[in-house]
């Protein structure tokens, strides 16, 4: 019998028990829907976390002094950062690179003193894709140039210091020679990041203000933050840049800079995979049940088919084709069921700010995240899910197909 004839026969067989086939398709589609949604949520939060961590930290890939990671003092700097950025920007995966200087400082006002983390940046180099705080301004102004005077504080830090716009804020740091220096700026802006620990510790300065205070050269900073087109390519990009920039600097990925984020993502990914495996097993069990029942019900028919000349291989193929058709239709049903909700959640999303406002949990490892739930699946993961559905369905058909091919015609024909 030609393959086409077997396919036609398999197709008709599937619709003999219309309700059962529809229910199986629903279970495949629902399983696919769950797997896609879970993975899309995970992928999107994974990508968002990387990007947010990069924006809050020092990029997807960071160039810094080789000892800065273990001992992040302001004496360990990257010199001639402009030349290094030129090398970095030539890499095909790099979106942009910026100079950053960050470290610890002690802030004082007339009323109080608090320790803080400062980030000094060049507003001309940064945009919303590289710097997390540009849309978090709740009072005052942001810097317009690399040499603007003034200081910007996190909301809670400003409250703790009792500082208002225009007030003097004294900052104390250790300069490149290990000397303590003190300088003063007026409060020009207050930002809210949504992450409580950041709001209580964040201090922003223009990069040239800090260079001047610390005695840095105009092209010197503690870090060069590199932003990639796709944050998932950080490892490969870091390896390439490591070779190009040589041993005088360390080239680290975002997760080397912030290992606590990596741990969180690994935990989420692990949990997601476990859930997907459970979903896969449940879907496969449902499909197996359908196909197995349909084979057992047709035991007599398979005996007849064997008697009139179908070979065991043809009966095996027939059932496997039925499984394959189920998989194909299940995939189409899955796409149909998933497309609408996926589009809505990937574009509009669900606002969870009230939920987070109650729990107060809007940061992981010091990284604040968007309180609107968005999803977005990595293309390769969508392909993996589609392949998993097809493979699970086909695997579920193997044993029933084997049973069909092993049928004893004499016993089967005598079955009522």
């Amino acid at each position, binding site marked *: *019998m030609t393959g086409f004839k077997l396919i036609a*026969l398999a197709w008709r067989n599937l619709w003999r028990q219309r309700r059962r086939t529809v229910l199986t398709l629903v279970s495949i589609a629902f399983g696919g829907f769950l797997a896609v949604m879970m993975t899309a949520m995970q992928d999107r939060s994974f990508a968002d976390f990387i990007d947010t961590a990069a924006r809050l930290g020092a990029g997807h890939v960071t160039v810094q002094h080789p000892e800065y990671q273990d001992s992040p003092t302001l004496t360990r700097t990257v010199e001639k950062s402009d030349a290094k950025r030129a090398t970095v920007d030539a890499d095909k995966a790099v979106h942009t690179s910026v100079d950053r200087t960050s470290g610890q400082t002690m802030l004082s006002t007339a009323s109080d003193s608090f320790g803080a983390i400062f980030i000094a940046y060049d507003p001309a180099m940064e945009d919303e894709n590289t710097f997390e705080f540009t849309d978090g301004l709740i009072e005052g102004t942001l810097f317009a140039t690399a040499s603007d005077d003034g200081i910007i504080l996190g909301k809670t830090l400003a409250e703790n210091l009792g500082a208002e716009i225009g007030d003097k804020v004294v900052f104390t740091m250790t300069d490149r020679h290990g000397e303590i220096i003190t300088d003063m700026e007026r409060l020009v802006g207050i930002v809210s990041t949504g992450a409580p620990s950041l709001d209580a510790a964040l201090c922003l300065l223009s990069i040239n203000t800090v260079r001047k205070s610390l005695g840095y050269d105009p092209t010197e900073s503690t870090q060069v933050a590199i932003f990639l087109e796709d944050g998932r390519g950080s490892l490969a990009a870091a390896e390439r840049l490591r070779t190009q920039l040589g041993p005088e600097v360390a080239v680290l990925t975002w997760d080397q800079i912030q290992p606590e984020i990596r741990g969180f993502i690994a935990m989420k990914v692990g949990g997601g995979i476990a859930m997907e495996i459970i979903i896969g097993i449940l879907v496969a069990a449902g499909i197996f049940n359908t196909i197995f029942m349909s084979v057992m019900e047709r035991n007599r028919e398979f005996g007849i088919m*064997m*008697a009139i000349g179908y070979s065991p291989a043809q009966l095996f193929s027939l059932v496997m084709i039925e499984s394959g058709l189920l998989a194909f239709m299940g995939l189409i049903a899955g796409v149909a069921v998933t497309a609408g909700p996926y589009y809505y959640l990937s574009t509009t999303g669900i606002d969870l700010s009230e939920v987070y406002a109650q729990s107060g949990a809007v940061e992981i490892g010091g990284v604040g995240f968007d309180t609107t739930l968005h999803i977005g699946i990595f293309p390769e993961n969508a392909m993996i899910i589609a392949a998993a559905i097809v493979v699970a369905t086909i695997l579920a058909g193997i044993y029933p197909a084997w049973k069909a091919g092993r049928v004893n015609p*004499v016993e089967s024909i005598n079955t009522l």
Partner: protein
Amino acid sequence: MTQSSGKPIVKLTGVTKTFAQGGLEVKALRGMDLTVNEGEFVAIWGPSGSGKTTALNLIGALDTPTSGQVELEGTDLSSLSRKALSQMRRDRIGFVFQAYNLIPVLTAFENAEAVIALQGIAPAERKTRVMAILKEVGLEGMEHRRPNELSGGQQQRVAIARAIASNPAVILADEPTANVDSETAEKLLSMMARLNEEKGITFVFSTHDPRVMKYARRLVGVVDGRVDTDRAKNSGEE
């Protein structure tokens, strides 16, 4: 032993068949010897449990003997692989069952076409051959009906069409008239007798229906798993 003058199609030599049933050994055949020649219209008859269906299953390569030899057109069936047995059933044997046993999702045409489709015959030739056969068995105009849209007699005609479409060496019919009324049974038997006479198709029936024995030209009586009587009917004898 009564045989026609054609070449041997089926030959059973000292065939035994023992089944295990509920822990007991049941001897269905106890040394059966039988030869069926080309063009014969043979009825194997006998009481229930006499071994006639078992004999038909062995001839049809659906089962293997416990001992003895079953030959089809000179080929010892026990020497064939599963695949070769499938091919033998497909190419050289036609089956007509008591319960019609059509594939329910296929139309009359597709059921009749099923075996020759397995043989890889081109679609155009299949269509010509099957349409001619359906006409011959009186199913012209019903080729698009599915089994559940046909009467019992019509379904059995489709089964006969399926059996003869592949030009087999022998058609094995197990109680083919058991599920149809007398009038339909007469029509079916008359049709098969005509196919035997006009086309020389060899038929072997397993039956205890007197109507089948009326049409048969050779009667093989089986008792306790052995051929008890074997006689050719004279022309005009009922």
